[in-house]
């Protein structure tokens, strides 16, 4: 039978192994972001479509850039970053977007191309699919659930209060003027 010391060592070894695998796994997960130019930037290039019927307007192109996250630590989208900071990334990503837009690619195709190169992290908001639905719906579920609980509580409290009122009610007899004066007094407007 293993001693407590042996057990702790085995547990420690297991944790180290799991941790190491996690680190290796993370490094693997970073593969899509592996740099072609040494700093995390990956060129997103596609052959132009000469026969494309419609090209994105500058405003539509800006909208696409607003959906692409800048890989620098700014947490901004490419459009905002390049028009305000700008960092070493956003002008290059902008150039890629411009090239793709001029090449006849649609907004969805440009976003898909960037996602293919960088992974989902490059998008400013996660896709509405799979586990991401938890992220999208949780706030509404929380507010809806909260409202439901509050509604149920008030209904329960209300029925108890109604029972109490039924057993001890005092009829109020007052003219409209009196009631208006009372309301003003209650509001504190008469002070």
């Amino acid at each position, binding site marked *: 039978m293993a001693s407590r010391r042996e057990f702790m060592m085995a547990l420690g070894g297991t944790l180290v192994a799991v941790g190491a695998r996690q680190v290796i*796994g993370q490094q693997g997960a970073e593969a899509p972001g592996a740099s072609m130019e040494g700093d995390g930037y990956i060129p997103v290039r596609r052959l132009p479509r000469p026969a494309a019927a419609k090209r994105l307007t500058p405003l539509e192109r800006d909208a696409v850039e607003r959906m692409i996250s800048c890989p620098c630590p700014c947490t901004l989208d490419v459009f905002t970053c390049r028009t305000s900071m700008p960092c070493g990334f956003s002008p290059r990503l902008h150039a890629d977007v411009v090239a793709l837009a001029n090449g006849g690619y649609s907004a969805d195709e440009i976003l898909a191309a960037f996602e293919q190169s960088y992974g989902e992290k490059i998008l400013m908001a996660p896709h509405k699919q799979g586990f991401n639905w938890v992220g999208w719906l949780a706030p509404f579920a929380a507010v809806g659930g909260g409202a439901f609980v*509050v509604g149920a509580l008030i209904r329960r409290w*209300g029925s108890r209060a109604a029972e109490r009122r039924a057993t001890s009610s005092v009829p109020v*007899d007052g003219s409209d003027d009196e009631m208006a004066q009372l309301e003003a007094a209650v509001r504190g407007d008469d002070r």
Partner: protein
Amino acid sequence: MILIGELSLWVALLMAAWSATVSFAGGQMRRSDLVASGERALYATFAFVVLASIGLWTALLTSDFSLRFVASYTSSNLPAVYKFSAFWGGQAGSMLFWCLILALYSAITLFANRRTNRELMPFVTGTLAAILIFFLATTAFGANPYARLDWIPPDGTGLNPQLQNPGMAIHPPNLYLGYVATSVPFAFAIAALITRRLDAEWLAAVRRWSLVSWLFLTIGITLGMWWAYVELGWGGYWAWDPVENASLLPWLTGTAFLHSIMIQEKRGMLRKWNVTLVVATFLLAILGTFITRSGVIESVHSFAQSPIGSWFAGFLILAIVVTAFLVATRLKDLEAQAELESMVSREAAFLYNNVVLVGIAFSVLWGTLFPIISEAVRGSKITVGAPFFNTVNIPLGLLLLGLTGVGPLIAWRRASVANLKRQFAVPVAGGLVLGAAFFALGMRDGYALVSYTLAGFVTTTIAQEFVKGVGARRRIHGEAIPIALLRLIGRNRRRYGGYIVHFGIVVLFAAFAGLAFKKEYDLSLTPGSSFTALDPYNRSWTFTSQGVSRYEELNRQVTAVVLEAKRPGMAPTLIKSEKRQHVDSRGQPTFEPSTEVGILESLRQDVYLVLHGVTGEETAEIRITFNPLVWWVWYGGIIMAIGGLIVMWPQATRSRSGRREGGYVVVMQPAAERPPVEAGV
């Protein structure tokens, strides 16, 4: 002085430790000598933290580069005002600044309660001292601004250009004043839970502090938005950055508390909920600080990654465990004295308002943390940025705006159908008329239309309340309208100050909705060339380049473009945008170039000029943006702050003796026993 400051930091830590120990012991053992000693020690802590702060300010202003902090955040050619504000520009200094504010608040709390709340005060003192221990220890051991370098550099690195803005001098202090003020209500809540004195006494004590926190957070957030707007690089006045989100969280729960506290005051209800909100507000302020300082979440605002993030995580967990234990063991003492009677009552409206406020806080927190959650669950990183927050929070925000108008229209306890019809008729009509008017004028953005319709509804509600109140005073006292209005507000500051805050919210939402109509133009201009653009109001503007100039200022090399802006009916005006390359005292570049925007401001819109760069000798690459209603954001913030001040302003002595939970009681005598009502009364 610098050495005295360094020593004072350590002495302050010892004093806080003594204060916490003897205060809790004194409160538990009911020993007044220990309690008094704890209070004196907390005053002494404040004095030593002041000395420590003066020491650091001395080092900053005299450019003592032997201190790592001074060398990292200042340079000898930095203007004095930024040397002064560099105190909170870096991790270590900002920690000491937090300690300074907390010690100041603690001393004020002790002084203000030297004769009141004596049962609670030992534990309030102990809790505040315990929080001070954490912050002082983190400062002394984890991020010491007095840490020295092995060698003395000839000059410092300088302050990040984005921090060289007047906003730096006022925005962080206001935000810190707001964050730290949440500690005092938290301390009172802990004291009330420990002593089981959970009646209205502790609530009365914390209400003003909650308002202080709310007011400073409101001012701080508004100033932050202004700074982020005028200083390029933060991504506009609100970019849903994690650190921006962190400031919003305690503001939201604090606002919820300021509404729900009224229900406990008037009806003796929601005791558990109020304790929870007070605690949550404090914990969210700490969580925000953890997010800013730990490096677990990337942010454009965050400090460099440092080990103190784990200190904050530990403190947060400890605070949650202690509070949860106290609440769980005192559930019976937190039972309500009354219960809600109707779904259609002001209490219910406040509760729904609380649900939405806390729901928005949850959604902001959830969105901020979801990348970490997703990575833990799926193993791959995602980004949660502005599109997510806008999709989720705009509908919730509009719901909240609607409730802002609904609450004041419904009676306490229970509203009758007749009462509802009477109260809602005018505001609903006001909202619909405004919405229809905007639709007729061609507005087709759905959210903007809903926003302006609700803005009309809430504004009419507020106006109706003022008209009724003034009318009542005129009937009863025969006062002129201005006098009646002033006295109405003065005699019932909480109610009417609150309405002013609501109006500020309306103005803010109107401004946010205006952003849906902004227009942007990218262009290249050589000297003398012009560009014509239409603004959101379809007015034609002509911009003519006056050329590019290059010159040197105190600590920077500047490249500037000046445009002449013209439109029919307006005199030509010049707008300038600059690219700045900051340099050290030897003329060497220090940071990446920064951009100073040029803004032509008006109530309707801002013309926002950004110089991207200069190609060739004189061709300016620029962006011109028409930002509608941006000034309304600042005005909204100012109106909210004014309303908050009115609410906070001490009422005359009247309520001091009569303050109690449960509010007023109205007794209607049976008709037979009533004296006859005289005509004209």
